[in-house]
């Protein structure tokens, strides 16, 4: 039995897509700064990267505020159940047409694997990228701030973080097509409403 659920509020959708665009843009400009791409020209790539980075920080600050005030942070609280079943589903079940072992509900819209992945993203990758980014832009003031490291090291961590983001993005974008029909998850995050069940 199919059911239409309102899963993602307007703020969440806005946040999600702004974040997606910013991260893709940060990846493009970042890897141009890195020397792997040539798209905008170095100067623009660098400036826009920093502007987009600041925008992402501001957006994230809003999102943290939103999650705390609405209690939506609970969606990311990790749970143990069903993780093996979900892994089995993506490895085998999905090809056999079996149903997803996890059923989305407005009060638990993220499956346990998602929870884990997003939690890692938010607790490790974001801070890593933001802290290194802060160091990169502030390196002229390190002596005053009492920071002792080398620009090179920080840049390496920032680059490593960038690769992790790219990795995440590939998997994440693909998994978004695994709904039934394939665009149902996408529709959910665009319109807010998603058909769940089968």
């Amino acid at each position, binding site marked *: 039995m199919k059911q239409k659920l309102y899963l993602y509020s307007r703020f969440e959708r806005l946040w999600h897509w702004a974040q997606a665009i910013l991260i893709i843009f940060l990846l493009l400009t970042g890897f141009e700064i890195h020397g792997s791409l040539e798209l905008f020209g170095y100067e623009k790539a660098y400036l826009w990267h920093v502007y987009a980075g600041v925008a992402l920080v501001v957006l994230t600050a809003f999102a943290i505020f939103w999650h705390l005030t609405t209690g939506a942070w609970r969606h990311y609280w990790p749970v143990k159940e069903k993780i093996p079943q979900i892994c089995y589903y993506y490895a085998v079940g999905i090809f056999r047409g079996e149903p997803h072992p996890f059923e989305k509900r407005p009060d638990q819209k993220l499956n346990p694997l998602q929870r884990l992945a997003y939690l890692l993203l938010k607790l490790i990758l974001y801070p890593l990228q933001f802290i290194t980014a802060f160091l990169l832009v502030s390196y002229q003031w390190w002596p005053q701030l009492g920071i002792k490291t*080398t620009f090179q090291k920080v*840049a390496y961590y920032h*680059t490593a973080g*960038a690769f992790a983001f790219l*990795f995440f993005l590939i998997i994440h974008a693909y998994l978004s097509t695994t709904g039934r029909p394939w665009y149902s998850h996408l529709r959910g995050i665009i319109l807010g409403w998603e058909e769940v069940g089968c």
Partner: protein
Amino acid sequence: MAVTSNWCRCTSCHAGYGWKDKNFDFSEEKIDCLVCHDTTGTYKKFPTDCGYPPLKDKLFAGKKLFKAVNLSYVAQHVGHTTRESCGKCHFYSGGGDGVKRGDIDSTLIAPSKEIDVHMDAKGLNFTCSTCHTTVAHEIDGRHYDSPAPGRRELAFPRYEGHRVRCESCHGVRPHKPSKKLFDWRLVKLNDHTDRVACQTCHIPLYARGKPTNIYWDWSTAGRHKDGKPIVKKGPFGRPEYHTKKGTLKWGKNLVPVYFWYNGTYSYVLPGERVEKREPVVIIRPNGSAEDPEARIFPFKPHFGKQPYDPVNKLLIVPKLFGPKGSGAFWAEFDWKKSAAAGMAAAGLPFSGQVDFIETVYYHALSHMVAPKDKALKCEACHIRQGGRLANISGVYLPGRDRLVELDKIGQALCLIALLFVSVHGLARIIISLKRK
């Protein structure tokens, strides 16, 4: 006038290397200076129109005059200096207009803003001494002090008026927004000045006025045609071959080379043994990333081929000018005789053998600052390969540098992920098609 003869910068005309500071014994070099003057005298392009009488070598033969050289004398006699008065020597160093340095030539008498924003005749119209302030008649520069005096900061009167650094007038963070309150781009440009010299970005090309000599091969000098000396003009109207000088190459609008430079040079001194590891660097800028005074600085490399004594491993100081019978190269065109005479005069041993060796001098570039819109673009340096700073070590230069292993691992993981999702997706598509 007489002073000129000593200041002629003979050092580049021949192996009169190591002319490092004012303590250098000029009396040893006097003959070489005459040589220089002969060159300029016969050099057709030498402008005699600036109220400057034609140079006559004989006039300068007096030894006393050579000893009397000092810059304060020059400064006093040129009075309130004009660009011409300094330029009489400096534009023609190396024996011709712009020969030696790629950034000081006769176009600076009345340059456009395009050539030099400071000496722009219709604009700022600086004279040389606007920057090269003279304190107690000592012209600021590396001649009296090495490195040049003054600090890299605004030159307030309490610093005795030394003003020969770009920072003396512009400060260390010279890029300020004119309209906006804050401009991150300019902040970033300012962040460079602790490592990158102003000149590096603001002198994107050298020899923008007159062509400069980039290669000087003495080994071919002395050829004659039907008993007559040969002068063959090449591109830019400059000699490609000259019996007295050898093979010459010229260039215009050239890209500098870059080194760490703290304002001092290392020189190969006369009598210093040099291994035949070519090219021998005769004037080498000092400095490294660890040196807080050093900046990445632009240089003109001046390549050449000079006489060399392969047995004693010495650069030869040849005798060039003199009457027949003295061994002078320009009278007899015999390197062995000329070397014997020159080395004897320099008090150095000579084995009797003359070989030729590739050499290079580096000249720091500080003039012909281009208009601001011609300053180097980010990509000139921040590029994976072939950038201007490709050979600069000791800094992490984003875009050029990376941790190759990290890139490999990152790329590999992302590729694996991509492959994995592609296979997974393809399998899903195939299965769903079959099901239909």
